[in-house]
């Protein structure tokens, strides 16, 4: 029974990883860009939600603040990272330029937040701390259940959007080849910010749900979540949305179960060895046959 409870907890934690992993996989799949600002966006949304609630706002208003700031920040990031990615020189380390800029943004955000609120972990008084129910001994937290449902609905909606709509077709054409997409009449400069809005939205939502569920925030929460989300993304395959869902949930469960059985440290070795093996021998991920370029999403 205890195992079942841990499995449920793992699924709930995994649902947060899913959203962050999907944010990572979107930018890698569309733009071939490993966006290191994702942990910062996650953390900024969580911190602002906490700060606004502490200042006396209703938590929903606070969450809206967090989300708006994260999306705006993501748009600023787009302005200074992806826009400068245009292949000018064509050499081997050039694809790292937006990566380096995004690392710069990560440093900026973390230190601005530290400057304003300090490094101490803060407690978030969740309005749903006691909202839970029990089925034959297994406790389900209602906010956790809602976040699990939300993340799956969101990702389902996202994949529908990519498949069916005009915007989705444009996005997929950019993922295939930006130059050809431009020739076909896709305004790449207008469509790419949409990816960043989605990234900001997903990270902010994940950050807010994490704050509400686990009731603590600190300037460093993004790092741990993002590392695990990267692991989930790699398991699912880079650029594969459904893979990111499966990978994120899997990592959440592995984390909770391994802490339950062995403690937190030992699990790093098998998980990251698995990552390395997948990256080297099966870069498409465990599930899909999708690859960068053709047949993504």
């Amino acid at each position, binding site marked *: 029974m205890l195992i079942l409870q841990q499995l449920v907890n793992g699924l709930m934690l995994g649902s947060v990883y899913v959203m962050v992993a999907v944010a990572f996989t979107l930018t890698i799949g569309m733009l071939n860009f490993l966006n290191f600002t994702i942990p910062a966006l996650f953390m900024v949304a969580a911190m602002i939600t906490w700060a606004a609630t502490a200042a006396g706002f209703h938590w929903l208003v606070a969450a809206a603040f967090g989300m708006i700031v994260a999306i705006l920040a993501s748009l600023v990031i787009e302005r*200074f990272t992806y826009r400068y990615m245009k292949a000018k020189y*064509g*050499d081997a380390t050039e694809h790292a330029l937006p990566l380096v800029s995004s690392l710069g943004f990560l*440093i900026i955000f973390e230190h601005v937040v530290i400057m304003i609120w300090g490094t101490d972990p803060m407690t978030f008084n969740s309005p749903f701390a006691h909202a839970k129910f029990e089925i034959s001994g297994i406790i389900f937290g209602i906010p956790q259940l809602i976040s699990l449902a939300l993340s799956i609905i969101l990702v389902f909606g996202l994949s529908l959007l990519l498949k069916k709509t005009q915007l989705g077709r444009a996005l997929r054409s950019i993922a295939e080849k930006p130059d050809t997409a431009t020739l076909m009449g896709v305004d790449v400069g207008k469509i790419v910010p949409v990816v960043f809005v989605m990234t900001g939205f997903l990270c902010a939502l994940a950050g807010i749900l994490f704050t509400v569920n686990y009731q603590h925030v600190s300037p460093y929460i993004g*790092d741990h979540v993002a590392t695990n989300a990267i692991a989930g993304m790699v398991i699912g395959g*880079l650029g594969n949305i459904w893979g990111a869902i499966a990978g994120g949930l899997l990592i959440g469960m592995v984390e909770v179960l391994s802490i339950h059985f062995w403690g937190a*440290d030992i699990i790093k070795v098998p998980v*990251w060895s698995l990552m390395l093996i997948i990256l080297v021998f099966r*870069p498409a991920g465990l599930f899909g046959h999708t690859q960068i370029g053709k047949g993504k999403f």
Partner: protein
Amino acid sequence: MSAYMTGIIIILCLNIIIAYSVFLPAAAGQLNLGAAGFMIIGAYTDAYLSSADEGLGLPIALTIPVAALFTGLVGFLMSFPILRTRGVYMILATFAFAEIVAGIVLNMEIVGGASGFPVTTHTELEVLLPVTVVVVLFGFYLISTRFGLSMRSIHDDENVSLLFGVNTHLVKVGAFTIGAFLGGLAGALYGHQFDYIEVQNWGILFSIYVLLYVLIGGTQTPWGPLVGAMFFTFIPEILRAIGDATGIELFTELRFAAFGVIIVGMMVLRPEGIMTRTFLELLFRKSIPKSNIKLS
């Protein structure tokens, strides 16, 4: 020399060595986000061999080279799987490698696990400074050789290098292995400066910063990591000094954020890093060939 200056020079020297460790693969077009992994292997190997209490108590003239060579061997073996990947995949694979090393060391009770490991032999700058100078000279020498030329050609275009008969795989493995050797060297020297090592010092943030030294410095010339490491070591100190001098508290507190702004700005203005070939030609007043081909 004040203790403050000595402290900065120690950090600068270590940063320069580790920067060359990441620069060599990067000069051959391979981005390495696993500097922490090599640093950990070098530091712990050296500490275990040289420590008098819990280790073997060997002299450091032996242990530092052995630690560096061992790290080089690990790098050589790891280069085969890691070099199968490229681009974003290689960044993630090297990152995974560093995490695996950190995870293994954290669970090795023989080297203290999570509580760290004391290094009993302390050295002052007399070891670190000459080694750093040798590493920098070696970096410059290596780039000037035929091997270095091959590295540069792979950095610019791997397929064309292959067509011209460069054994690209051999060059990439070589660059990665020498990089690992230097990473281990930096780790081994670190222990003797700070007398205590723990895995938590070398997390993802460390690897990120080292990669930034190299990319901000520039991967085209061996000046890149030198300038990059100096830039990253001195700028926060300069910003702190300005903050202290003007008495504006905000300056001191904002210095890391300002640092991030500088990084973003650098990528906008000088995406190839501070030290590029054209900039060096300008600096040393070599004649720039006039042609219609746009030099970058």
